């Protein structure tokens, strides 16, 4: 067997393994999410199917496979079928670039599926291609609510993609490479990048929440507002594929955040004093970090209310985008003028930026929210007391 063929074969094997691992994680994420939400609301989650409800995902999967798979008459035949496939394909592919350990640490193989020089760009591009799946799905349903839901969702995703793309620029200036392995190695040598890019991380995590349509930015799926958004006309496995894509995107976003800002697969190095070499164990640390971020996703969902759509777009365009630009310029100025090797002031700058973001966002919101040119005059005064007609 020629060498390249064996290589290719291993890549395929790893790809399939990763895809199934992600799908299993997705299935159990739904269970974990429901149980955690239940815990946070002081009740029990699903605990009937199997011990601790562990067979619930399997039951759900079997149900969705055996459901009737029909297509509404108004739907576009090809695109309606294609959209969920596009969504899941982009979602699954993005994860392959994440390095889960040092080279040759996965039974002699590399613990990643593909390793590109422009890894970070590839990941961002692939995650943002999920927009196609959502928008095509909404359009192909041939009905009003899915169309509006799809439009809203795609507008939201592309808006926050800007903030996402711009917020990593400061990080790239420090590291000087877009290859994810280089970024992880840099953090192994210099410390986690969240120390130097605090503002960048804050902007990035907010954008990721919006990018994967999670609370508080989940209005494409706001059941009370637009029926179910782009998912309204989908059923059986196609619906499940969209859900899968969302959760897989969530896992990928967690993995990207861990890789970019939290040292990737490297663990804290002071633990080496206790167990030598523990900080370089593959998989363990990355999985721990991903789990922490997933918990954060669920926690936020249980805690925060949803934004209104106009607030959402304003937030993305008027706060996130300028703040990310400012962060880039400030980091650039510091990197250009600072003496070599002196990085702690970046932490101070980042902390100040974060504080300014938190404190100033309210003030800025008031400033930019007052419509100037749209001709909107004063709002009607709020009614005093309870309105007469019940609703």
């Amino acid at each position, binding site marked *: 067997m020629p060498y390249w063929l064996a290589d290719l074969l291993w890549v395929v094997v790893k790809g399939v393994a990763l895809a199934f691992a992600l799908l299993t994680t997705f299935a159990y994420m739904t269970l974990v999410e429901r149980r955690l939400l239940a815990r946070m609301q002081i009740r029990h989650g699903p605990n009937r199917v199997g011990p601790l409800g562990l067979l619930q995902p399997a039951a759900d999967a079997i149900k969705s496979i*055996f459901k009737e*798979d*029909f297509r509404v008459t108004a739907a576009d035949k090809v695109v309606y079928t294609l959209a969920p496939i596009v969504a899941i394909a*982009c979602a699954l592919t993005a994860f392959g670039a994440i390095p889960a350990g040092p080279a040759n640490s996965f039974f002699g193989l590399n613990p990643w599926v593909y390793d590109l020089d422009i890894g970070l760009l590839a990941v961002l591009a692939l995650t943002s291609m999920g927009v196609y799946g959502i928008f095509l799905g909404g359009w192909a349903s041939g009905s009003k609510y899915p169309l509006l839901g799809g439009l809203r969702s795609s*507008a939201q995703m592309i808006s926050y*993609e800007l903030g996402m793309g711009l917020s990593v*620029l400061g990080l790239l200036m420090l590291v000087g490479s877009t290859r994810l392995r280089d970024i992880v190695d840099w953090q192994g040598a210099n410390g986690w990048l969240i120390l130097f890019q605090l503002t960048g991380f804050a902007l990035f995590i907010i954008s990721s929440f919006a990018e994967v349509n999670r609370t508080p930015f989940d209005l494409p799926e706001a059941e009370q507002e637009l*029926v179910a958004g782009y998912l309204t006309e989908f059923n059986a*496995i*196609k619906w499940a594929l969209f859900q899968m894509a969302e959760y897989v995107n969530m896992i990928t976003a967690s993995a990207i955040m861990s890789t970019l800002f939290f040292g990737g697969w490297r663990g804290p190095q002071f633990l080496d004093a206790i167990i030598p070499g523990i900080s370089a164990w593959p998989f363990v640390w990355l999985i721990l970090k991903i789990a922490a971020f997933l918990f954060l996703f669920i926690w936020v969902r249980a805690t925060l209310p949803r934004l209104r759509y106009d607030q959402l777009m304003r937030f993305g365009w008027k706060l996130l985008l300028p703040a990310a630009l400012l962060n880039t310029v400030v980091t650039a100025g510091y990197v250009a003028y600072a003496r070599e090797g002196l990085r702690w002031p970046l932490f101070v700058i980042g902390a100040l930026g974060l504080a300014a973001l938190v404190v100033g966002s309210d003030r800025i919101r008031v400033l930019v929210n007052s419509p100037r040119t749209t001709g909107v005059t004063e709002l009607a005064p709020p009614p005093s007391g309870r309105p007469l007609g019940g609703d």
Partner: protein
Amino acid sequence: MLLIAGGIGVLAVVVSMILGPKKPSRTKLMAYESGNDPLPGGKERFPVHFYLVAMLFIVFDIETAFFYPIAVAFGKLGVFAFWETVTFVALLLVGYVYIVRKGVLEWD
């Protein structure tokens, strides 16, 4: 990887198509509209805001695309690149301020 992932998607759809029951009826195939008969249309006109956002996204994403090479090569370029970046950002900010003042980003 893309092929594998796409293959899994196709597989899931095909399996589900084969396995599920098939009893279509006229009512079942109607578009969802809260129990009413759906009004004609569905691919109708929608607010121009979405076009605006898409266009602005293209502009600013191109800007981001220009930023990546600068950012990656920044360590080698130094002070000169910084002022180049500032100029570029300033030019874009002019456009940004214009659209903000124009009220393009207001949704009602």
